């Protein structure tokens, strides 16, 4: 199939359809309205259903129901909307349901602004809702990768029976880039979900629940979830190494939008005689800390850059140890750093 020029939001929507998803529940919010718009037009064409819920709270509970019935389903929203969904996400994590959540982040806190930001790293990777749970978090850096990771998100959600976030920002959502869809999954070909609540004809009822009043049962459930998270940590760490070589002057650590800006900065630095590389986590949870550690040993300096006041940097510091100096450069509120700013920051660090 030839590459097609698509907006990030539309590519995300089409990728969900190509992943065999036929159900969308959501509520509009900028800067990701093109996703629900796209789904509302495309889903009926493929026998799917688009539901605009009365609020994000109901959307997340509709997802609970649809996933409990064994259907691939997803929603998309932006920061404040994702906050409203947190109760549902916690229940979905507790009941072990596969649901994909797209968060096209904006600046915050509160209502914030609509321009690109990476303000929800903590919320996505450290729980977000109540209870002791984890979500897989995937962070695309290009429109093509957004499409690929959405398809992967559905597979991982099913594999672990767990909510999966795809974390982007307005730049990924609004930008157009060439996209190629590498595979198309027919919903009928997906493996049967024997745990789903599909009508208990000829079998014992399946129960979808997150309520365990007996503390012994709940403790068992919590340890079972923990075991699942350990499996994710063992199997699902993903990252990209760009321009990594022995004896780097500066190692950038950045994800999503900032990572691609860092790539331009790295090319500029090379022309100034500075060798710089990039470590880009693709999964933010599980965080590829061991790989980062070994790459960081090759560099004099480590510079974390985010569209936040510093969130991922806590994971970077945790994995590199307290003796390793880690510098930070962030822009917030919807302001996006230029490659020139990153070049200056790297040069300052090397002085």
């Amino acid at each position, binding site marked *: 199939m030839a590459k097609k*020029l698509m907006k990030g939001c539309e590519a995300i929507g089409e990728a969900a359809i190509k992943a065999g998803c036929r159900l969308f529940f959501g509520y509009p919010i900028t800067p990701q309205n093109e996703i629900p718009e796209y789904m509302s037009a495309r889903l009926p064409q493929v026998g799917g259903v688009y539901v605009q819920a009365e609020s994000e709270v109901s959307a997340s509970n509709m997802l609970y129901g649809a996933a409990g019935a064994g259907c691939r389903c997803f929603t998309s929203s932006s920061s404040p909307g994702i906050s409203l969904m947190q109760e549902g996400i916690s229940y979905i994590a507790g009941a072990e349901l596969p649901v994909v959540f797209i968060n096209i982040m904006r600046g915050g806190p509160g209502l914030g602004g609509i*321009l690109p930001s990476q303000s929800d790293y903590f919320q996505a990777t450290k729980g977000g809702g109540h209870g002791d749970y984890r979500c897989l978090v995937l962070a695309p850096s290009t429109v093509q990768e957004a499409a690929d990771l959405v398809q992967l998100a559905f597979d991982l959600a099913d594999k672990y029976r767990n909510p999966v976030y795809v974390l982007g920002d307005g730049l990924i959502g609004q*930008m157009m880039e*060439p996209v190629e869809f590498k595979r198309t999954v027919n919903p009928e070909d997906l493996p049967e979900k024997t745990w789903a609540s599909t009508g208990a004809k000829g079998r014992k009822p399946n129960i979808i629940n997150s309520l365990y009043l007996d503390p012994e049962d709940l403790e068992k459930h919590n340890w079972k979830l923990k075991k699942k998270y350990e499996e994710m940590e063992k199997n699902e760490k993903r990252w990209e190494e760009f321009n990594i070589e022995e004896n780097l002057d500066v190692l950038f650590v950045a994800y999503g939008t900032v990572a691609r*800006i*860092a790539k331009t900065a790295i090319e500029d630095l090379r022309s100034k005689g500075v060798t710089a590389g990039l470590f880009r986590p693709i999964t933010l949870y599980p965080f590829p800390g061991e790989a980062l550690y070994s790459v960081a040993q090759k560099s004099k300096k480590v510079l974390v850059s985010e569209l936040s006041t510093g969130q991922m940097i806590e994971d970077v510091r945790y994995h590199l140890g307290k003796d390793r100096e880690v510098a930070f450069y962030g822009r917030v509120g919807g302001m*996006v750093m230029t*490659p*020139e700013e990153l070049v200056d920051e790297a040069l300052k660090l090397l002085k």
Partner: protein
Amino acid sequence: MYKEIILAGFGGQGVLLIGKLLAKLGLEMGNEVTWMPAYGPEMRGGTCNCTVVISDKPVGSPMSKHPHGLIALNLPSLDKFEDFVRKDGVIVINTSLINRKVKRNDVKVVEVPANEIAIECGSAKAGNMVALGAFIGATGLSDLEMVKEILSKSLASKPQLIEVNHKALTRGYELAKGV
């Protein structure tokens, strides 16, 4: 090959559309491309712009601080971006709505009365195509036929619009080429 181009004008002048055509052209030529609209809290009657990057390598930042090319369809756009265009870059201005000269003397300037030419071609809405044609002509980014073909594909659902837009593209192209 690495070109950053900013296209700017009033909302409604079709700058996002010609930006998309430019991105499609880059893709058709076998390059990597990005098209990034300014989507902030835009104001009605304010400026609207997008940035297109065409590169033979994967595109890093899709935004541009110092573009190689600028298409300015109105005065606020020229005021906003003129100073940032790279030395030896190309600026296409729409003299129908811009009543001053470009101040820079280290760039190539193409002046096109895009609105008047568009009306002569048969549609007042085609000023954006005149400017795009002029930009292609001034930069030699591709031959005109390739752009026309891409435009025809994009207008497949509205075939009645193809001829007038082709005409507008060609007029702009020829003006820049000095034909």
